[in-house]
Each structure stands twice: as C-alpha cells, then as structure tokens.
C-alpha cells in the first residue's frame, strides 16, 4: 500500500522516436495542492494526459491511492476518483449550462446508462446540480447554451463539471490561462473553495497563482523533474531560477 494520492514511478513517454517524459517519479500526498510548472514543451500537459489515461505510458507505473491505473481507459480512471479539466476548454457547447453540470453528476450518482428514468423527475440529482451551479456562480446563466458563455464563465463551468463527480483527486490544466487579472483572482478563489479537502494538481504558467495556491511546486524541464518542494524553496532554488524563473523575471 501507498499513502500517496498519486505516485508516479519512473514514467516515460515517447511520441514515436521523440521522448517527451524521461523518467518522472513523483509522490503527491492526499490533500496536497500541487503545482507543476515549467517552460513550454516541458511535458506538463503530456504528464496530465498520462495520469488521466488520455494517453498510454511508454514505460513506468502510475498509482492512484496505491492502485495501478496505467493502461486503464480514461472513464475507468475517472470512476476511481480522478477528474480533470483541459488546457483548451472542454465542455458540451450545445447543451445548457445546467445540462453540462448535470452530465457531470450522472455517473457518480449511479445513473449509468439508464434509459428508463426521466431526468426531470430525479429531484436529488436536480437539487445537486442546482447547488453546484450556485457553487460556480453560474445560476444566472442556467439555461444558456454553454457555447455562448464568456471565456471565463466557460472555464468556471469546466471546473464545475470537473468537480461534479465528487472525485478526490482533481487535475486542472492551466485553469487561469487567458484570463484577466481580476478574472484569474476570481478563478483562484473558486478553485480554492471547491477543491477544499481534495488533492489538487495543476499545471499553471501564472506564477502569482502558483505561489498563491500551491503547497508544493514541481518544476518540469524537458521531461525531467529538476526540483520539487514548497514554493519558498522553489523560488530560492538556483537551478530553477536558471532554467525557468529567471527567464520569466528578466
């Protein structure tokens, strides 16, 4: 048994002959807020895709609460309590905001592929969807097709869909990318609130968001971890400054 929420052991990933992830080992403790940073092309999103089952690993092992999940299809990993958002907003654009949230709840509330129950009559489900809608501050947009929301609202909706299933482990891929300062501040507050008590892993470029939200920061450069630790230690780390932070500062 392992006490880590997520444990990566010597994970490798290549696209054809091109290695992207070259031996990543990492433990993420339950309840931790973990940020993964690194320059463009470092493999952060690829790492997320490996953990969430969107891509198969080339070599190595991924465990979720001690259970091996590498090789499982994405929906099975999701059912084990790991949920994610995407760098490019991924919602159901033609459905209403409310329907989007409700779709996020269906599986976790045991509806499976039911074709003999009418959604409109499932009070427990609809109440849960209304609550979640309020949690992500989208009540006023309830009946609007999700594709018509503003960008920041769509990001908030995606976070809503991501947490709807009650997963213990949440992966957010650049949740504040493309947002204005005030929108990003709102998003950070939202993320902090709705991931209370859960394990949070996020890829983020915005350093103020990272140092605001994260307990642990891991720096990934060209498929390898060069440092991992509390934000203060990372900020002080020489190698990180040279490889990444320095470039941002200057």
């Amino acid at each position, binding site marked *: 048994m392992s006490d880590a929420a997520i444990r990566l052991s010597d994970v490798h990933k290549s696209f054809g002959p091109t290695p992207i992830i070259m031996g990543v080992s990492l433990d993420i403790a339950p309840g931790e807020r973990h940020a993964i940073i690194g320059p463009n092309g470092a493999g952060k999103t690829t790492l997320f895709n490996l953990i969430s089952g969107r891509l198969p690993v080339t070599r190595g092992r991924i465990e979720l609460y001690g259970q091996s999940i590498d090789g499982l299809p994405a929906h099975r990993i*999701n059912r084990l309590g790991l949920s994610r958002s995407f760098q490019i907003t991924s919602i159901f654009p033609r459905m209403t905001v409310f329907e989007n949230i409700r779709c996020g709840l269906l599986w976790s509330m045991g509806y499976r*592929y039911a*074709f003999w*129950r009418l959604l*409109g009559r499932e009070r427990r489900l609809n109440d849960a969807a209304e609550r979640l809608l309020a949690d992500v501050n989208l009540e006023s947009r309830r*009946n609007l097709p999700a594709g018509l929301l503003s960008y920041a609202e769509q990001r908030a909706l995606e976070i809503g*869909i991501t947490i709807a299933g009650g997963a213990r482990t949440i992966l957010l891929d650049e949740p504040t990318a493309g947002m204005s300062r005030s929108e990003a501040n709102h998003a950070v507050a939202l993320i902090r609130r709705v991931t209370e008590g859960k394990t949070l892993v996020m890829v983020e470029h915005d350093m103020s968001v990272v140092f605001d939200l994260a307990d642990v920061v891991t720096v990934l450069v060209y498929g390898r971890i060069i440092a991992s630790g509390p934000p203060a230690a990372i900020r002080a780390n020489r190698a990180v400054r040279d490889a990444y932070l320095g470039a941002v500062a200057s």
Partner: protein
Amino acid sequence: MNETLAHPGTRPVATAGLAGFLQRHGAWILALAVALVLPWLFYDWSRARHSGFVVAMLSQMSMMAIFALSYNMQMGQAGLLSFGHAVFFGLGGYCTAHVLNAVKEGTFWLPTELVPLAGGLGGLAFAMVFGYVATKQRATAFAMITLGIGELVTACALMFKTFFGGEGGVSTNRMIGTSLFGLGYGPGIQVYYLIVAWTVIAIALMHLLTRTPLGRMANACRDNYERAQFVGYDPSMVRFVQFTLSGFFAGIAGALYALTYEIVTFDAVAGAMSANALLMTYIGGVGVFAGPVVGAVLITLLQSWVSLLSNSWLVYVGLLFILMVTFAPGGIAGLIAMHDPIWRSKRLGRLAVPYARVLVPGLIAVAGFVLLVELCSFLTIGAAQGKSFKLSGLTIDPQRPGAWLVGGALLALGGLGLWREGRGFRAVWESLMEEIKAAGRA
C-alpha cells in the same frame, strides 16, 4: 437547433393536468387528429370504399416516421452517421413475417396487435450483434462499418433462403385471426389504424428517451466524447445502448411494413432503404425531435404521388437533398425553428412581402427546371415507353427546340430573379434579427 435547448433542465412552470398536457403537445395531438381523419376525407361514399391509394400512402408515411425517428436517434442525437439502418428495419420485417406465419400455423399464439413487438425485438437483437462491432468506432469509421453491414446483410438476404426466402422474399398473411378486438385486418384501413397506434407509442417512447440519462449522454458524446469520458462515461457503451434501442424502433417500423405489404424482400434491408432513412431525416431536420417526421411525410408524398406523375421524381428528391444540405442544414424543421423568435416577437407579418417576392422567381425557376428534366426524360425513357409529353391538353414534342428554349429561359430568368430577391430577403431577415436582439436587450 438543438433538442436539448428546447427542454431546459427541469420543466418550466407548466399548467398542470389535462390543459397543460394539451398545451404542451398541441402540435402532436393535431397531427394525430389529422392522421385519424384523413382517410375519411377520401372515402368513396357511393361505393362505400376507402381510397386504397390514400390509405396505403398514409400507412407508408406513418411507418416511415418511426423509421426516420429511429435513424435520428443515431444521427441527430448521438452524432452517428449510419449507411446501414435499413438492416434493422428489414430484419424486423423478416422476423415479423416468420412470426405471422408461425402464429397462422398454430406454432404459438400472439395477438395481431402485438406482432410489431416481435419485429422490434428482432431489430433489437440484430442491433446488439452488429452494434457491438460498429459502435466501438465513431465518425467515419462507424459510417464505413455500417455501410459494410448493410452490404453484408443484403448479400446474405440473397444467399440464405430459409430465413430470407431468396429473391422472392418471405410472403406472409396478416389475417391470423388472433386480434384482441376481433378485427380481421383484411381491409387496409384496419391495418392503418393499427400502424397509427404503434406510431403514437413509438414516438412517445422515443421522445421520452431524449429526456433520460442515456439520451442526455448520447448528446454529450456527440458534442464532446472526450469530456464524456472524463465524467465517467464510456462513449462506446453510450453509442452501443443508443444504437441498440434505435434498432428496436427500426424493427417496429419494419414489422408494420411486413403487416402492410404481407411480403418482405431484400429491398427492405438494402442500401436504397438506408439512404431513404438518411434523406427523410436530413430533409426533415436532425436538430429538432419532430424533424424526421416532417421528412418522412414529405419524401413519402414525393415517392407515392409525384412518382405517378413523373419518371424523374428521384431527380427532384436528389436536388431537394442537395439544396437542403447546402442552404438549410437544419432541415425543414430547422427552417421553421428559425422563425420562432420572429413569431414570438409578432413580426412574422413583415416577412410576407419579402417571401412573396422570393416565391415568384422561385416558382418560375422550378417550372423551368421541371420542364427541362421532363423533356430529357421524354426524350429517353418516355420515347421507349411510347408515351407523349402532354401538358394541360397540349402535346409537347421533345424533338423540337421550342420547349427546350422556354424551359431554359424560365430557369435562367427565375434563377436570376431568385438571386436578386434572395439578397433583398436576407437584408430584411438580418434587420429583423437585429431588431429583435435590440428589443431583447432593452
């Protein structure tokens, strides 16, 4: 444009009881009333007989409405383009023919009224088998596999004579004498009312399906299958269940076909029938639940009525399909739905004149086109059949240039007018939309 948009999460505060039911389903109830009354408008009182042609056409429309709606469970609701949907229609029909024959011989007892259920279960069973293969894939791969399945089953229909009866098909007799209501089902009108009853049941069930967890996730997988995976659903399983249920309803339609014609041949599983489902659904409109019903009525009308008037009716269906795909991808129902905001803001009257101005050159162009097509047809097929081209008493000789010139001139003139007036129409439409948007903001 989207079914889910028309039904937001929980129902809006609706009038309770019967009044509310009538209000919400007014259009459907009206359609049912028309379906029930229509045969009597063509009743020949002097000879006390129904019009066989009208009853047959209405029966065909009704079963095709089920068939097209079942197709849209895949195409519109799940985003699956199938080229082999007739397989489940036809196999449902074959199963029904065999069940009818078995009941007739006394092998087992089944009321005539429940025979369509046998077709449905047949369609369901085969959809499980073929769906297991097809629904592992989506998009183009899915379309290719269904095309293959369609060809495969058509070939089998000619090879395995015990089940399919070879080229002659399987004949049957619907008068099995097991009616729960003591009906003989000899006259077509009795079968028609049985078809209407089953159509009501099938439409109601398919409509309810759109409001279930499965129906909603079918939409979700259509819109973004990857997101569906990351909320715990296996998109291929969603496709499989949806496909299987769609096969059930196609099988019911096939059963009604077997009851009506008392013979099922390989035509019922063949590519042309699958194409029919696609045409009806697309022309009717994939984005609105009732769209395929509109398509089924229109295409059946063309098939049974226009085909009497012209050899070239398929040319018109083909042209209509191309025009719809190009200019109105939402189908007829989509076009109607586009008028909804204008209707609700009580501005529909402002479109009357622009519509008339488009209609006149439109009709001229259509007349020119029809004349040219018919001239071609009489030059070739008509000549072979020894027919002559008569238009309100006037005999037209396709060998002489006069009619060709008139046709060409009408088409060119109408087309030019349509192009000009179409721009004017678009300007009026856009200004109306702007106006409504502005009114909505105020």
